[in-house]
């Protein structure tokens, strides 16, 4: 395992957003180093997914900046942010469920298939070459995640855990430098979760990327994270290495309620 080096790839500075008067994220600042697995945890409604939606451009923050590789992502559209190198998965899956697994991955190759509209109409040689290359790359990722036998089956026919993995494969097809995973272990059993932990670490090393994770499964978070930030009511209440977080009284209180410490 590579040790994370200390260059910031993502810096959130004083990020705030509110919906209908309720502050979902309140002055959040954090720095994610290149090549590390960074987790954001917190009770339900703490604003974790909102942070992800700000980073990937779906929400515009009321104030603060999101700096990715030295570029402010605020005011950029989601597709531009994808182009800058941020790939993500969604809490409730946003797969194209009528399409096959391969088609889903090929859509993620949109940025890498260099063809023009008129070339596609005529199906020129360039189109065939580019399409074949995109398909090869998609198959490479399917192979890597052990999904190649599913390539031509529509998404809707798969059980939830496999759909989760397909969405991960699709996010990887974007060739991201920062991979944002929103509750990747949600709905998975213990064995599947453990498998997922290994996969995430392997992806980080093999694809040389940074992982930003929101997850409720604490054993997984503690296992694979290099650093963790804890959110409550949109505010950061702790950050540090997994062992520091585990022993932080504020975190225990946030999760288990007041008085838990003395129990």
């Amino acid at each position, binding site marked *: 395992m590579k040790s994370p080096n200390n260059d910031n790839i993502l810096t959130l500075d004083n990020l705030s957003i509110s919906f209908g008067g309720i502050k979902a994220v309140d002055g959040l600042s954090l720095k994610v180093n290149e090549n590390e697995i960074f987790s954001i945890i917190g009770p339900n409604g703490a604003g974790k997914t909102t942070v992800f939606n700000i980073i990937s451009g779906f929400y515009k923050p009321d104030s603060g900046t999101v700096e990715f590789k030295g570029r402010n992502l605020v005011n950029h559209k989601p597709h531009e942010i994808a182009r800058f190198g941020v790939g993500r998965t969604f809490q409730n899956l946003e797969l*194209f*469920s009528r399409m096959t697994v391969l088609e889903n991955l090929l859509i993620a190759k949109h940025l890498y298939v260099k063809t023009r509209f008129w070339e596609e109409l005529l199906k020129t040689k360039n189109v065939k070459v580019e399409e074949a290359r995109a398909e090869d790359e998609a198959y490479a990722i399917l192979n890597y995640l052990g999904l190649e036998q599913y390539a031509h089956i529509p998404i809707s026919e798969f059980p939830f855990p496999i759909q989760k993995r397909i969405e991960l494969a699709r996010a990887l097809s974007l060739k991201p430098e920062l991979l944002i995973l929103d509750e990747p272990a949600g709905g998975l059993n213990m064995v599947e979760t453990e498998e997922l932990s290994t996969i995430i670490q392997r992806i980080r090393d093999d694809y040389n990327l940074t992982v930003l994770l929101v997850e409720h499964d604490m054993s997984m978070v503690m296992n694979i994270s290099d650093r963790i930030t804890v959110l409550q009511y949109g505010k950061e209440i702790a950050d540090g290495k997994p062992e520091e977080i585990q022993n932080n009284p504020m975190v225990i209180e946030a999760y288990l309620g007041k008085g838990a410490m003395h129990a």
Partner: protein
Amino acid sequence: MINKTKNRFLKYLPIIVIAVYFAGPIFIGEYLTYLITLMAIMAIVTQGLNVMIGYAGQFSFGQPGFMAFGAYIGAIVVSRMPWIPFPLTILIVALASALLGFIIGFPCLRLSGFYLAMATFGFSSAIFELINYLGPLTGGNEGMYAPAAAIGKWKLTSTDDVYYIAAITVVLVMIGVKHISKTRTGRAWNAIRDDEIAASSMGINLQREKLKVFAFGAVLAGVSGLFYSYLIRYIESSYFSAMGLSFFLIMVVGGTGRVFGPIYGSIFIIMLPQVFGGKFNQHMNLVYGIILVLFVLLAPNGFYGIWDKIRNKSSVNMNLRDKLFSWIKRERVK
């Protein structure tokens, strides 16, 4: 062995169909030629609608307006500059329609669902109002003569001539859309149709792709409008505004989102009044309405869907038979 010949036959089938299609006017009378030309024209404009709704999920009431625009631009330009050869006219109309598609598409970018439908309806109606208003240019309510297609001194005035122009175009359009549907742009459009959030996080520029599909739909409608003006030689805005329902019907009957759906749909729509004739034409809209509702309710995937169902059923029967045979065989072995 049988399968192989069958496959080979299937492989050449489209070529045979196209060959017969192009040889058609030699053998059939002028009226049938006229009808088939009309089918081709309807198939082209509906293919635009089909791509917009079926592929990209962008609802449009705008096709009649785009079609009228194409017809009028062609007629206005060529009646002033008769020397323009018709391929150039087609190009001019295509470009003008694309431009209009962009102009109308741009403000529509923020809209979706019913709002988008109403905005396109508004634009389409505005085009008709403007055509009627700009009397000196368009003849207003009275309509205007549309010049025939021509290259130099060679005038393509007969129905057969328009037949060939429309026939070549419809084949090219179908092939083009078939290609698009399997490549980058087609996938992006499907992605936008199914899930805009996921599409944008895959790096797809929603606005650009929506504009592209708007322009594409506009070009097909505009060009088919031009061909329609070649065919009937006299245009009134009401001809086009009355067509709106037909396009939806053709799309739904053929099979929304299927490449060759518009072809089957337009054959159905054009032949229906021919088969029933007379009395039927008085109540055409009633029959069309009933067919549209029945298809939307019972066969939402059109002829394609019905065909798929029949095929699946027969394959189920096949499985049953196979199972039965294997069971009998096993019994014998015992």
